[in-house]
């Protein structure tokens, strides 16, 4: 079965995409919060793009692992947006972004505890019932862990899959960055994932800050990521792959080149 390859729909490429329909791209991902309120040019372009490509929506503000009540106004707004543009998939992150009514617009890690598993299960159920659609949740890149954690990240995600049936958007770059930062074998992580419940892969480039790796989404993918992708292909070869580039975004053709690298790996795997 063919895998689909996509990129993020970013404002720096609006002009290009108003005039071109890239052939190497199978789908586009939009950051939900960048599009859910606007009725201007970004929305107009999205309406045009979605006539020619499947769209996925990737959120950054649900704060599914948080303890603040989930805001009904926000949920209503994203539900309306999803209903209007009919994405083929919706996702957010396994993280918290808010506390006491304030946002940090960043994806913060939480302790991997049984208490948080229960909290997540309840909140995921609530959100999916409200939205009337399944959501996938992405593993995080984290620059700190908690002494309170009772299990590793992969054990937590595996438990989450078993106890909630939750769909996972697996970010290979985040696994690789975390494996360096928190000193574990990324293949061990992959070995604990139930790939039947994975809906999509994210790949990107990171920045080597010498004392740690930073998930900057500002570079081409490193060769190590290609190797991880090959490992995934041994488990499942039909997962959509989304290349993320969010800082120092280059011209669109360079994004296409990055996508082609992963397409080639997929093609070689099938031979």
């Amino acid at each position: 079965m063919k895998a689909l390859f996509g990129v993020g729909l970013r404002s720096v490429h609006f002009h290009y995409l108003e005039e071109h329909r890239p052939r190497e791209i199978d789908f586009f991902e939009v950051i939900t919060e960048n599009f859910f309120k606007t009725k201007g040019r970004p929305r107009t372009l999205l309406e045009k793009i979605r006539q020619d490509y499947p769209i996925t929506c990737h959120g950054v503000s649900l704060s599914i692992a948080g303890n603040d009540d989930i805001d009904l106004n926000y949920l209503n707004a994203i539900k309306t947006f999803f209903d209007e543009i009919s994405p083929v998939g919706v996702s957010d992150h396994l993280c918290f972004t808010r506390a006491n009514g304030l946002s940090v617009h960043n994806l913060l890690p939480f302790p991997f505890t049984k208490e948080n598993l229960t909290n997540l299960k309840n909140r995921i159920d609530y959100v999916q019932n409200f939205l009337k659609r399944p959501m996938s949740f992405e593993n995080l890149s984290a620059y700190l862990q908690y002494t309170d954690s009772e299990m590793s990240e992969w054990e937590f995600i595996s438990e989450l899959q078993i106890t909630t049936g939750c769909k996972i958007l697996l970010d290979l770059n985040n696994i690789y960055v975390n494996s360096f930062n928190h000193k574990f074998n990324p293949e061990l992580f992959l070995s604990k994932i139930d790939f039947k419940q994975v809906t999509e892969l994210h790949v990107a480039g990171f920045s080597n800050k010498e004392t740690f790796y930073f998930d900057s989404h500002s570079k081409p993918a490193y060769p190590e990521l290609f190797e991880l992708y090959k490992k995934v292909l041994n488990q499942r070869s039909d997962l959509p792959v989304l290349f993320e580039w969010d800082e120092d975004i280059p011209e669109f053709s360079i994004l296409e080149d990055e996508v082609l690298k992963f397409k080639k790996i997929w093609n070689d795997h099938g031979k």
Partner: protein
Amino acid sequence: MENNFLESNLIKYINLSEDKPEILMDKIIPAGNLSNLEALEVYRDDYFARLKEAMNHHFPKTLSLISSEDWDDLLIDYIIANPSPFYDLEDYGENLDSFLLNHQNNLIVKYPFLVDIIRFEIKFKKLFHQKSSLGLDTLELQNAFISDQEICLTSTHFIHSSHFPIYNLITQNEIDSNLEDENEKEHILALKKDDKIYIYKLSRPEFLFVNFFQTPSKLSLVLEELEDNLAPQVLEKLIRLLSDHGAFVKN
């Protein structure tokens, strides 16, 4: 309970509501070769970088008209004083004008036009995200005038008045120019059509005419109020401009 404590204190540390990392220090294991404090600072630095990037995006003209040091200092003060309650960054900075007036008098003295250009950019951003509307076409507008119906302007426009030459500032980055008469105001009309925004300078009578139609009004009554200040050919040109941009709707 423990989660609430962690979340609350991490967010307070990141947005500088409270600068007490020691509460978190024995709760975290840092990434790579970072120290505990450096790991926390990764998140704080990223928070400030994201909000600054959003503000640079929302206020490109303001950014280009004042020194980068002054802009950076203003942003840091603003971000510390205004932790974000928002789910997205589109509305962040919406009170930058009042923040300046209340807290940054030195900057206003140095750049007297600053509050006005910020207000212009806040209006511009709102207009950018508005849906382009289909207002009355020329024939429909003529009929509305003939039958003396109330009409008003759609939300896809704004008007902006200033004691400073905002038009030149935004179109040519000309800081040095001043209005000749201190009592004089410059009036700007922004109209949106097909997702593009067009900026026009208006005379005072033209501005007054447009301003009447912020609320539903009859052309006959507006012309009476204007007391012949607007020459017929100027009025006709202005109405054509507004109708070409689909700016009028029936009440």
